[in-house]
């Protein structure tokens, strides 16, 4: 048994251990780096930046805890930015767990010194409408009236009791909308219905798996900005920190995870390379033996 053969026959548990360590160790490191910002993330920032204070922004949280590692950092960063900028935030979810994730993002944002919880009144500055079953039909019916789909908000207040919602009939009264999506229903449905039929301006945060399906919509302008996967989250944090830095600490888990992510990719690539070298070395030796 030579070295390469032994390497190929290695117990896969060693690989597992290797992966675990490669991801866990960078967690202990605190690094700060300047990412280059891609056009699609810049587009998302620009769209948010153009909004006047008190503009109404609709955020749809269409993911659940398993996808949170990718999407939560994006949600956190955008939530911080919107609160700091005094945009009025309307939260909803097409996935049952979405509104809970939204509350997490709100709480995370309120930890910032610059964003004082007392300055923001529920129902006036932000509202959580909760989850509504029905997938894309929810978006469709929101097109004629939000009220039909959300007669009560997350905590049971009636729609008409919420000062923020009283002035809002349908998508026409929304200045911008953001969707955090991990699959179906998600960005694709928002584009097909809210954008194509009701002309909503939409930005999106996607998991890496879903992002490739959304890129075509970005290229055709149906989505004004797009953040995909961990890299998207890190860029988003970076772009906020760069243009809107100040005292709010935007660089959070997205940036922090990015190092782990880089190492993880390096590990996978390393495995592919080692596996292939071993494969070729053994292959050649076997060929040599055969020819002798």
């Amino acid at each position, binding site marked *: 048994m030579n070295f390469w053969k032994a390497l190929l026959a290695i117990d896969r548990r060693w690989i597992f251990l290797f992966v675990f360590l490669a991801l866990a160790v960078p967690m202990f490191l605190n690094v700060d780096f300047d990412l280059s910002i891609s056009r699609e993330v810049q587009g998302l920032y620009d769209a948010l930046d153009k909004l006047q204070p008190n503009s109404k922004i609709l955020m749809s949280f269409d993911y659940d805890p398993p996808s949170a590692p990718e999407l939560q950092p994006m949600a956190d960063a955008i939530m911080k930015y919107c609160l700091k900028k005094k945009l009025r935030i309307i939260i909803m979810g097409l996935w049952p767990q979405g509104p809970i994730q939204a509350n997490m993002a709100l709480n995370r944002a309120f930890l910032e010194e610059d964003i004082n919880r007392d300055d923001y009144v529920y129902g006036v500055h932000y509202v959580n409408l909760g989850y509504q079953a029905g997938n894309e039909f929810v978006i469709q019916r929101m097109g004629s009236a939000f009220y039909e789909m959300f007669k009560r908000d997350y905590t049971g207040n009636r729609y008409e009791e919420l000062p923020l919602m009283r002035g809002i009939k349908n998508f026409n009264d929304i200045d911008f909308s953001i969707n955090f999506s991990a699959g179906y229903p998600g960005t694709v449905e928002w584009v097909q219905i809210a954008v194509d039929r009701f*002309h909503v301006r939409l930005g999106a945060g996607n998991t890496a798996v879903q992002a490739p399906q959304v890129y075509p919509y970005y290229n055709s302008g149906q989505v004004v900005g797009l953040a995909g996967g961990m890299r998207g989250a890190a860029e988003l944090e970076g772009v906020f920190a760069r243009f809107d830095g100040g005292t709010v600490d935007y660089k959070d888990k997205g940036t922090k995870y990015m190092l782990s992510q880089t190492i993880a990719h390096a590990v996978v690539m390393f495995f592919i390379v080692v596996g292939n070298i071993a494969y070729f070395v053994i292959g050649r030796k076997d060929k040599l033996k055969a020819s002798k």
Partner: protein
Amino acid sequence: MLRKIFPIIILLCILITPAFLSGQVSQSSGINTEFLERFELKPPTDFEVKDTPNDNGGSLTLQWRLSPDDNLWGKRGLVEKYVIGRRIVGEEEFQFVATATSQSRLAFDNAVNNKDRYEYQIAAYPFKYIFRPIQWNSLMAVNQMERFKALSPWATMSPHGVVLSMLGQNYSYYGSLDGFESELAQKSVWENFSADDGMQGPEAIATSFAASQLVSSFSPYFGFFVQSSLTSNPYQLLTIGQYLGDGLMARSDVVGPIKTGKSWLHMRRVNVLVIAAVLSFFILHFIRQARIGKELFIRKIAGLDAVEEAVGRATEMGKQIFFIPGTQDMQNIQTIAGVTILGRVARLTAEMDTKLEVPVSRSLVMVTAREIVQEAYMNAGRPEAFNEDMVHYLTDDQFGYAAAIDGKMVRQRPVTIFYMGAFYAESLILAETGNSIGAIQIAGTAMPAQLPFFVAACDYTLIGEELFAASAYLSKEPKLLGSLKGQDIGKALLLIALAVGVVVQTFGWFDFASLFKV
């Protein structure tokens, strides 16, 4: 003439400069009367209302050309939004329907019925409301409900609170609804309406708020609930400014009357109808041909030749076969394709007397798979070997199912595992575990994102359409082979359309791609 204008221009420049410097419109500058006098917004033109085609009524399409003031020097102009009003023919007042953001040219009114005839009007709204302060006595701190009521002829009580009746009138409302103490309320007003902290007194408030930003704007067509709990919070501060007049809101002509209609055929979908009809024709045609007995050639599909061999190996070793028909319900055509293949595999296991286990994640799939396996065993002449619990349910949950299958694999060590159907992320969990126990794995799915993992971890993989072809290939039934041939003709037609389309499109003869727009 020039002398008159010159100071105004200078003044304007002085007023505008800080706005450019600070990067946003300054809120503290006083009311811009020069601007007011000079400015008259132009309405949107060519306003048209049409019945939205291809629906079951209940919707009208509104189109217009942008107001010339909407697009200044290619940038965002002076129009903040368009407000659309609607009235039933014979009525006097327009009801507010919708607003559309600046730069938009199209809106839908989906809240009409099929009976009435409607008239519409659209108005361009300036980017910022400009208000004249009203008299101090109406800028009021409401500490008693009664007082509020007495003061305001346009405010009435309702069971839900106070309604400001604004229909047809030009009032707008400023206010802070979140304050509970007068001081706090005062503070919010200052924050919202006055950027200059040095200003004192009611006059100052009035002046500054006149030039300030709206907390909540609404159109004159609008009834408005102010606060349902006014009575319990006696210190609400409400201020109401009077809109300066119609001069700034540029209304278009009234259009209509118009009525919605129902259509019997969705014209934009006729192309789909044609394509579907042509495809169906070829598929059915070749199925017929195959039934008559015409020989149809089918190329080898790599994974499928291995099916028999894999089942055979399990037989030799006296071990089990797992068949996993995906994790989606019967509402997925891939699952149906998967269980169809299960039928052929079950027939083989019945003939070779091999143990088959089908753990499923959906109850409907369980029911269907049982029917299929039972039939296969009957056809193979071994109904006694069929046991209902060969097909059993675990859990609907994607990962719960994957966890259970993982456990089953390492404990029962099947020799052959089939994955045929719709898979999501669990594909790799299953395939890797299967690989670690050394099973022969044959996979087939039409989920593009999962294919690489099956390709990597399984011995054979059916890619996309091959999954659907598999049942035909395995059974060699003429009707199924015929439909494969039909599919191929469909593909050929699409390829020709593609090639012709690219050429036509390139030379710009006509918009070929629009034939495929839905």
